[in-house]
C-alpha cells in the first residue's frame, strides 16, 4: 500500500495566502483575492472619484465598507457643522461617493461608527482567515484575530475595489515569539515598543522586503484579543508588511455573535475552517525572533522614530556613545527636536498633554487599564488630558461601566470616537504653552514623528497606563509606582 506524500508544513500565513490565490502571474507575483475592503473619508473620496472617472465600479460593493474616522470632530456634540470647511469637504464628498458606488457607510453619528480598525472587528466584518485591506497603514491591527490584513495606497485601493483582488509577491515569513509572563502594569503596547526598540524600525524586513510576521509564544497566547490587536497594530512601525496571531479558542469566542459575524451553522462551518489556521510543526521561517517578557518594564520613546525608545527607567541616550554615522546623526537630530538632554532621566520630565486613544490603544480593555491607574487622583495642573474612545460602541460600553465618570472626575476630557490627535489635521490641537515653547505629549498612539501631533509637538509613545500615570504626575511617570 503506497502512502500519500505528506503536504509541506505551512505557516498560518501561507495557509491564508494559499486560500486566496486567484492566479499565479509569473515572476513571483500572485493575483490574490481580497475578502473585505475598508475606505475612510480622508482618502476614500479621491479613490472612488478616480474609479468613477475611469468608468469603473466596485466589483462587489457589498464587500466594501466606508467609515468616517480620520478627521472627524471628537468634541462632544459634533455634527457636519462643527467641522472646518476642508473637513466638511471630505465628509460630504465621501458620503456622496460611497452612495454613488453602492458602498455601505458607517457615518459620523452612526451608533456603530469608530476608528476603522476598531470598528471592523467589533462589527464582525474582520474575521479570522480573511484578507482585508484599507488605505491606512495600520490595517494590520486586525491580524490580532487572525486576519491577513495590510495597508495600501489609493491607487491600489482602486484596483482592489474594481477587481476584488490585488497583485502581490509572497512576503518573507518571520516568527516572533514572546515568552514568559508579562509583569503587572506592563502591556501589549510595551511588548511591541520593546520589539521595535530592540530590532529597529526596519527589524521586520529582510533584504528590504517587509515580512509577514506571526506573533506567538506564551505571552501572546495570554493576551486578550484586544491586546493582540495592539501588538499587530505596530507591525508597520517595525517595517513589516503585516503581522497576525493565529486564531485560537479565545478568538472564536470573541468573534461569535457580532453583528456581521456568521451565525448558526455558518459560524460552525467557519469555526471548522478557522481551527485549521495554525502554523504546522516544522514550518520553515525566513527569520525568527524571541523576546522574554518576564522582566519587561513599561516602555517609552524618547526620539522621533518608534524605534527610539526603551525601558521607562532608562536615561536619555547619549549620542556620543554611538558609532559615528547616520545612527548617531539621527539620534542627535531626534534629541534636538525632542528637547532632551543626553544622560538625563526620562522619568520626571515635565509634560503638557496626555492622550489616550488611536487604533493602537482605544478599545474597552485599554480604557479600563487607563482608568484603573487614576485611583481618585487628578490630572496635574496645566496638563491637557484627553481620552478618545476607539468607537461609539466602546464609548457606550465604557459609560455603562462608569469609566467616563472616573476620567471626567480626574480632569480628563471624554471625547467622541475618531482618530483625533493621533495626528494633527488642523482642526483640533493640544493648545499652546504660554511661553511659546513646544508642547510635550505622552501618547498611547503609534507614531512619534516630527510634527505628527502638531507643529513642534514632542511625542512620547507609551501604554495607556503610562499615559494616565504621567497625566496625573504632570511628568513622565511609571504606572507601577504606587499601585496597590
Amino acid at each position: 500500500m503506497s502512502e500519500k506524500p505528506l503536504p509541506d508544513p505551512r505557516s498560518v500565513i501561507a495557509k491564508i495566502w494559499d486560500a486566496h490565490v486567484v492566479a499565479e502571474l509569473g515572476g513571483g507575483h500572485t493575483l490574490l483575492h481580497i475578502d473585505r475592503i475598508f475606505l475612510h473619508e480622508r482618502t476614500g473620496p479621491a479613490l472612488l472619484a478616480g474609479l468613477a472617472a475611469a468608468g469603473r465600479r466596485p466589483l462587489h460593493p457589498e464587500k466594501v465598507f466606508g467609515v468616517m474616522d480620520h478627521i472627524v470632530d471628537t468634541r462632544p456634540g459634533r455634527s457636519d457643522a462643527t467641522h472646518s470647511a476642508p473637513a466638511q469637504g471630505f465628509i460630504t464628498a465621501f458620503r456622496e461617493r460611497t452612495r454613488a458606488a453602492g458602498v455601505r457607510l458607517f457615518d459620523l453619528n452612526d451608533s456603530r461608527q469608530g476608528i476603522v480598525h476598531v470598528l471592523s472587528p467589533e462589527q464582525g466584518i474582520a474575521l479570522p482567515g480573511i484578507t482585508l485591506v484599507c488605505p491606512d497603514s495600520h490595517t494590520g491591527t486586525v491580524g490580532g484575530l487572525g486576519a491577513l490584513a495590510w495597508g495600501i495606497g489609493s491607487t491600489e485601493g482602486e484596483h482592489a475595489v474594481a477587481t476584488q483582488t490585488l497583485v502581490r509577491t509572497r512576503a518573507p515569513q518571520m516568527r516572533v515569539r514572546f515568552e514568559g509572563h508579562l509583569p503587572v502594569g506592563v502591556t501589549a503596547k510595551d511588548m511591541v515598543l520593546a520589539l521595535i526598540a530592540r530590532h529597529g524600525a526596519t527589524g521586520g524586513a529582510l533584504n528590504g522586503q517587509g515580512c509577514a510576521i506571526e506573533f506567538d509564544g506564551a505571552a501572546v497566547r495570554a493576551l486578550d484579543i484586544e491586546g493582540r490587536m495592539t501588538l499587530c497594530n505596530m507591525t508597520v512601525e517595525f517595517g513589516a508588511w503585516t503581522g497576525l496571531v493565529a486564531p485560537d479558542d479565545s478568538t472564536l469566542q470573541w468573534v461569535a455573535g457580532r453583528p456581521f459575524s456568521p451565525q448558526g451553522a455558518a459560524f460552525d462551518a467557519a469555526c471548522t475552517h478557522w481551527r485549521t489556521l495554525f502554523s504546522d510543526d516544522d514550518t520553515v521561517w525566513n527569520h525568527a525572533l524571541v523576546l522574554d517578557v518576564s522582566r519587561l518594564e513599561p516602555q517609552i520613546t524618547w526620539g522621533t522614530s518608534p524605534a527610539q525608545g526603551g525601558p521607562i527607567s532608562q536615561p536619555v541616550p547619549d549620542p556620543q556613545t554611538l558609532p559615528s554615522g547616520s545612527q548617531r546623526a539621527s539620534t542627535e537630530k531626534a534629541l534636538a527636536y525632542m528637547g532632551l538632554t543626553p544622560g538625563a532621566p526620562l522619568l520626571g520630565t515635565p509634560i503638557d498633554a496626555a492622550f489616550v486613544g488611536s487604533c493602537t490603544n482605544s478599545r474597552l480593555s485599554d480604557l479600563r487599564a487607563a482608568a484603573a491607574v487614576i485611583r481618585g487622583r487628578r490630572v496635574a495642573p496645566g496638563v491637557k488630558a484627553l481620552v478618545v474612545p476607539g468607537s461609539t460602541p466602546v464609548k457606550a460600553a465604557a459609560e455603562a461601566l462608569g469609566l467616563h465618570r472616573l476620567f471626567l472626575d480626574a480632569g480628563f476630557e471624554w471625547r467622541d470616537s475618531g482618530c483625533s490627535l493621533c495626528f494633527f489635521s488642523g482642526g483640533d490641537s493640544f493648545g499652546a504653552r504660554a511661553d511659546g515653547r513646544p508642547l510635550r505629549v505622552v501618547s498611547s498612539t503609534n507614531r512619534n514623528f516630527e510634527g505628527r501631533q502638531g507643529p513642534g509637538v514632542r511625542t512620547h509613545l507609551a501604554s495607556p497606563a503610562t499615559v494616565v500615570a504621567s497625566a496625573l504626575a504632570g511628568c513622565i511617570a511609571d504606572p507601577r509606582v504606587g499601585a496597590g
Partner: protein
Amino acid sequence: MEAFTRIEGLTAALLRENIDTDIIIASRDITSPSRDGFGPRLFAPWRYDGPGGPERPDFVLNQQPWRAAVILIAGANFGCGSSREMAVWALRQFGIRCVIAPSFGAIFQGNCIKNGVLPVVLPAARVAALGALAASAAQPLTLAIDLQACQVQQPDGSCDGFVVGARDREMLLAGLDEIDLTWQYRADIEAFEAADRLRRPWVWPGAVTAPRP
C-alpha cells in the same frame, strides 16, 4: 499610469534616516479630496518657517540649484509611516521622478511605482557617496536614471546598477494600467469566486452574513 524610461536631472541630497510620510506631506496640508496641489507643500515642516511661514533658506529644496531637483537621494527607510499616497503625489508634483535610498517604507515604495516615480535601492555606502557628491552647489550633480539598463549613471560614465522587480519595470516602461492587466484574468476571478462561495460561504455577505436587525 505615467511611463518611466530614462530621466536625467539635478540631484538633491536629504541624508536622514526614517524620513516619514508625515514630513513629506503633513496631514494638515491635505485640505481637499483631490489628487492635485500638493507640490508646494512637499516637506512643508522642514521647508517653511512654521505653518504659513516663509521658506527656510537652510532647507535643500529651497536652495539653488536644487529648487529644480528631479532626483532625491535620501537615508534608509524613506517614506515610512502613513500609507497616504499624497506623499508620492507631492514629490511628483514638485518635480521629483526618482528617489535613491538604501531602503523604503513598503507602502510608499508601491505607491511610487503606481505614479511613475522610481524608487531605487542602492547600498548605504553608495547612497552616502552619491549624497556627498550631490551636496556641492558649485558643482551640482546631474544623474541619469536608465530603467532599460537599470543603472544610475554619472556624467563621468561611472554607474551603479540597481534591481527593480520585473513586473514593476515592465509596467513603468510601458506606462501600463494595472487594473486593465488584471482584467485579463477576469475568468480566473470568476472561477475563484464561484468555488469560494462554496468553500467559505461565510465570507460572502448577503448569503449568510447579512447584519442582524
